[in-house]
């Protein structure tokens, strides 16, 4: 793909500078947390501030896993697995269900469409508090409190509406001609969708997936209500293990934060390669 860049060098540098500044602002506060995971508490308190850790240490992680004698470790591995299972499952299901919905909105005319669309939007207006207790009551009755399943279902409801809206937008950008051509080529509606429209909606689906995954991965409020034990506690809830009645183990929390961030970063990096530009270019005139 050719990209025309009748840009002056100074414009290019201006853009790069802008990106650099933005990246600094976006990363520094977070990097500080990451660095804190590798320093002893005493450095956190230093004045003037110690930016780069002078004494790198893995003690915080050791404590986390119970490898030091100071305290018992946390079931981090179990939290991690819970988080991963819950986030991945709910993301995948939400993307599938949401995509089906988005496709319906983008490609079909039907009765009650606008109402339904608005209803999906409004479903998200319900504040967490109004939701969490009744949800808890119902989940308790159904016996799915403190199970991954219970949380997955809730995250589905959180993630489906925006997946629908987002994919709706992307499917609309794909010329209808393409699916028509595929049907002429002998595809069933399903094949036409799967082989043609799905790959072309990739950038939308990728961003929806990233978004859904990160939402579930980081969600705290509902998870803290609906999980109780290692059977389903997720990483963000586990993070609160570092807050006792009176103290907050900030370095330990940072260490755990690093464990939360890294997989999210890796997964995001993998998925976001599908955010490809110009996918539908050249198809129709």
């Amino acid at each position, binding site marked *: 793909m050719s*990209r025309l860049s009748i840009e002056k060098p100074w414009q290019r540098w201006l*853009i790069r500078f*802008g*990106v650099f500044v933005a*990246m600094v*602002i976006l990363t520094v*506060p*977070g990097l500080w*947390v990451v660095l804190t995971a590798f320093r002893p508490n005493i450095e956190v308190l230093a004045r003037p*501030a110690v930016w780069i850790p002078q004494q790198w240490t893995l003690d915080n992680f050791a404590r986390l896993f119970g490898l030091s004698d100071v305290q018992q470790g946390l079931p981090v591995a179990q939290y991690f697995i819970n988080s991963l299972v819950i986030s991945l499952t709910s993301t995948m299901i939400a993307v599938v269900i949401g995509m*089906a*919905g988005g*496709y*319906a909105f*983008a490609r*079909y005319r*039907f009765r*009650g469409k606008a109402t339904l669309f*608005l*209803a999906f*939007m409004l479903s*998200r*207006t*319900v*504040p967490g*508090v*109004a*939701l969490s*207790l*009744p*949800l808890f009551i*119902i989940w308790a*009755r159904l016996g799915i409190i403190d199970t991954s399943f219970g949380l997955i*279902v809730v995250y589905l*409801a959180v993630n*489906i*509406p925006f997946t629908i*809206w987002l994919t709706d937008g*992307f499917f609309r950008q794909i010329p*209808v001609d393409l699916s028509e051509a595929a049907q002429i080529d002998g595809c069933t*509606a399903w094949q036409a969708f799967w082989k043609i429209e799905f790959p072309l909606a990739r950038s939308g689906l990728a961003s929806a997936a990233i*978004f859904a995954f*990160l939402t579930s*991965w980081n969600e705290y*409020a509902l998870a803290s209500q609906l999980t109780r034990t290692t059977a389903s506690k997720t990483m*963000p809830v586990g*993070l609160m293990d570092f807050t006792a009645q009176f103290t907050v183990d*900030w370095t330990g929390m940072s260490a755990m934060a690093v464990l939360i*961030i890294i997989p*999210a*970063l890796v997964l*995001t*990096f993998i998925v*976001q390669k599908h*955010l490809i*530009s*110009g*996918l*539908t*270019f050249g198809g129709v005139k």
Partner: protein
Amino acid sequence: MHCSGLFILVAFPRGGEARVGVLSVATDVQIPPRARWSEGFAAFFRSPRAVPYLLLLPAIIVILAVVLVPLLVSFWTSFTSYNLTKPATLFNFVGLRNYQRLMGNEDFWWAFGRTFIFVTITLNLEMLLGLGLALLINKITWGQRTLRTIMMFPMMFSPILVGFQFKYIFNDSIGLVNNALFDLGLITQPIPWLVDGTLANFSIIFAEIWMSTSIFAILLLAGLMALPKDPIEAAKVDGCNPLQVFQHITLPFLMPFVYIAMTIRSLDVARAYDMVRIMTNGGPAGRTELIWTLMTRTGYQNSQMGMANAMGYVSILLSIFFTVFFFRKLTAARTFMGGAQ
């Protein structure tokens, strides 16, 4: 018979699983008189017209189960004096008392107004910054993938973590910001970031923006990448400078994504609750009190669930306002996009 609307019954047998029964599904099919509605129903399901409904069915079921039913329960509680630790109060109907008390509750209305302003400011700033970021990154060809990942870095932070992070960063005595300002010799007295009314609100807005701008950026970037190239070239030839191309071509194409992102975020800023609770918990002296902190404190710490839910329903008005507003914008913005209207 002419049925429209979709009804799902979720029955809760004690301790058992949910039985989900679909009673009827929206249709404009003329179904012959009662006795045979099930046949007409079956026929409808096999007809092509059922396709969109079938596609949407799973989504509808999930939403109904997870949102609607709880919603009805909490709606009921807002008319009771429901106290968490006294289950029996769930049936203590007090009519509009909670709402009446709310009307006269100055703190609540302050929080309400503040929340409105908070949402408006953060949404707009996040949108502008996110758009700017997306445009910048879109210009970069080399190393874009890495940049995109870095850009999403704040999204990896759980809101509670963000809360702690900024609580420490804005701490006036050991915080990073003041430390840095001291080191640079810019201040001699610590700035009470989380105390002064303006600064405290600035701080939580900053934290929220830091946390969420990337979400806008990533959604808009995805939109930018799906942008058709042809009209942009045509506009260049038609004499547009880059700004005009942006205004007349890029932006109209991006608007649906902007509105979708705005809607998602307008409903999602409630996530900021976790963060605000940790940073200020509405304090000091209620200067940063938002509906969410007030509501949660009322419901869980004070156990007054009925009252908390009444607050919730008043605040839903706010969300509905934003939602309907964006929905209309969205519908208008995407008329030109392909697909069925």
